[in-house]
């Protein structure tokens, strides 16, 4: 039995685990218990293969837990159909991945609009939201450009705009600056953090302890176990096993 979530808790995990089938089965995440509140900025750190991405995938409903209880906005995820999970994912989450995953045949604006298509918005509103989001990441002037004609940093900013345009309650970022240089990384990071003021929770997986230390709350993952705080990584400069750009 789990306690009912507090009203401000967007995400609540109680004893959540994910075991991948195999011989023997691989427990990638065990007994994760924590919650994320609106407007909160949370970093997830850990070595490569520790279970960080598994945790992020579970949080964003890209994968489902095999154990425990996970609630999104009070709704128990395990009892939802695939269609309901998809709808909840679209309504609640915005994703920024290490790669921008922009469609090369679509312009920056069309890529941002792509994230809004499942919402059944009118074309005008979709366009307006996309232009606003591109403005927020400083790319209004590049909205008609194809990804092939933009830099890596600009592409990543388009990916952030795509996530922001969805007006998510939670922004899930998996190494969002992993492919970028230091200066661009800090610009992108700044954009992501600024969303805190708009009551959007930001959950960010990172290897960069420099970035991690700037975040108000950290979770560390080690061998599939999640614990509050930086733990053993507190004094590290960077965590080993960062994905190469």
């Amino acid at each position, binding site marked *: 039995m789990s306690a009912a979530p507090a009203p401000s808790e967007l995400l609540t995990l109680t004893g959540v685990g994910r075991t991948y089938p195999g011989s023997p089965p691989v427990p990638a995440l065990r007994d994760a218990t924590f919650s994320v509140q609106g407007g909160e900025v949370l970093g997830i750190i850990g070595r490569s293969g520790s279970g960080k991405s598994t945790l992020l995938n579970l949080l964003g409903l890209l994968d489902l837990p095999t154990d425990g209880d996970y609630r999104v906005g009070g709704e128990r995820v395990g009892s939802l159909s695939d269609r309901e999970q*998809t709808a909840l*994912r679209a309504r609640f989450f915005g994703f920024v991945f290490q790669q921008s995953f922009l469609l090369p045949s679509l312009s920056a604006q069309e890529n941002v609009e792509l994230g809004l298509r499942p919402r059944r918005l009118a074309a005008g509103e979709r366009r307006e939201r996309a232009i606003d989001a591109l403005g927020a990441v400083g790319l209004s002037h590049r909205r008609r450009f194809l990804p092939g004609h933009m830099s890596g940093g600009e592409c990543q900013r388009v990916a952030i705009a795509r996530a922001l345009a*969805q007006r998510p309650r939670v922004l899930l970022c998996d190494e969002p600056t992993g492919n970028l240089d230091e200066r661009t990384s800090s610009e992108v990071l700044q954009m992501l953090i600024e969303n805190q003021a708009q009551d959007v929770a930001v959950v960010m997986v990172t290897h960069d302890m420099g970035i991690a230390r700037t975040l108000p709350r950290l979770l560390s993952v080690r061998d599939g176990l999640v614990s509050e705080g930086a733990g053993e990584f507190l004094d590290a400069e960077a965590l080993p096993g960062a994905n190469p750009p």
Partner: protein
Amino acid sequence: MSGLRSGLLEAVTSIVRHPVRTLLCAVGTVVAVGAFTATNGLTESASNAVSASFNELRATTVEFQGPSSLSEADVARLARLRGVTHAGLLWDVEQQQPLPVTVGATSSGPSQTRLSVTAMSPPALTAVGAVLSSGRFYDTGADMHHQMVALLGSAAASQLGINSALGDPAIQVSGAVLTVIGVVSTAQQESQALLGVIVPPYVAQVIAGNRDPRRVIARTTPGAAQLIGHEGPAELDPDQPRQVTAEVPPNPATLRSQVQASLSTLLTVLSLAGLGIGFLSIAAVTIMSVAQRRSEIGLRRAVGYGRLEIARLIVLEAAGVGMLGGILGTSIGVLATAAIASGNHWTPVMNTTLVIVAPFLGVAVGVLAGSYPAIRAARITPMAALRS
């Protein structure tokens, strides 16, 4: 409804923005629908031309088979029937068994050749539409006066080394010396006779006696063949008409439909093969495209596209490509039909319903071919796709 419209717009965008992929995907359908349209058009055109040709020749010819007692006097009775234009008696001497033939009047000539011998009365030569390349035909008088003459088919003449009937060359057939008075180059019917020797009835009896069953060829006016076929046996053998059988050409209308039916079978086989190629082409390219677009599909799933929407997008794209291929293929098929028919001096005939329906056939092929890749795409989980 808005979901479908949005899906259609996305499919059109994808088709337009990936011209190479679209072209590769559409090639099979263009070929398939083009072949389908062209085959249909050519079948219609050819059927028209073929049946017209059959109407002229086959539909005005009746062939009777009877006993060896049938004579030219019997055939003369048949020729008097209203609707008969020509009638002649003929038979295969020794049942078409090749007989020894040598060139020259003496048996010490060059080595023997074995050739078939056909007996034809002078009216039969007219009835089968024989045409001479040299010399002359024998006439009724020659037969009545027991002249030992013969005609050679062009193939037989060439085999015997006789280039023309000039100088009345002699041949021996089973020991009988015959004067070659003409070489027959073509015949509308009984063309197998051109492979051998053609002789008057009297000569045939000298060579092989009077044992072989007779045939009578009757040419009729258009539309009279059925009636002549019905009444002919009684005229040829009033005492035992059942001994005479008639081979009547099919009714022109029936013939036309038979020609169309047999060509339709060809059409169906070719069309199905073509559509099969189109199906495989779209299916293969779409499966490949889905594999290449895994991260795109993963991203779409992550931002909220459901499995159904992903499947619909893939099917709509395949249907769009199918339609494009269908329109192009139909246009090419119509042009090819017009060009080939004109080249053959046929009247180009196209089924307009088919021309309208053909592009939708491309759509149907696209939908069917896109279904399996769509199901595969819908099964891709966002996590697996984004990780790849």
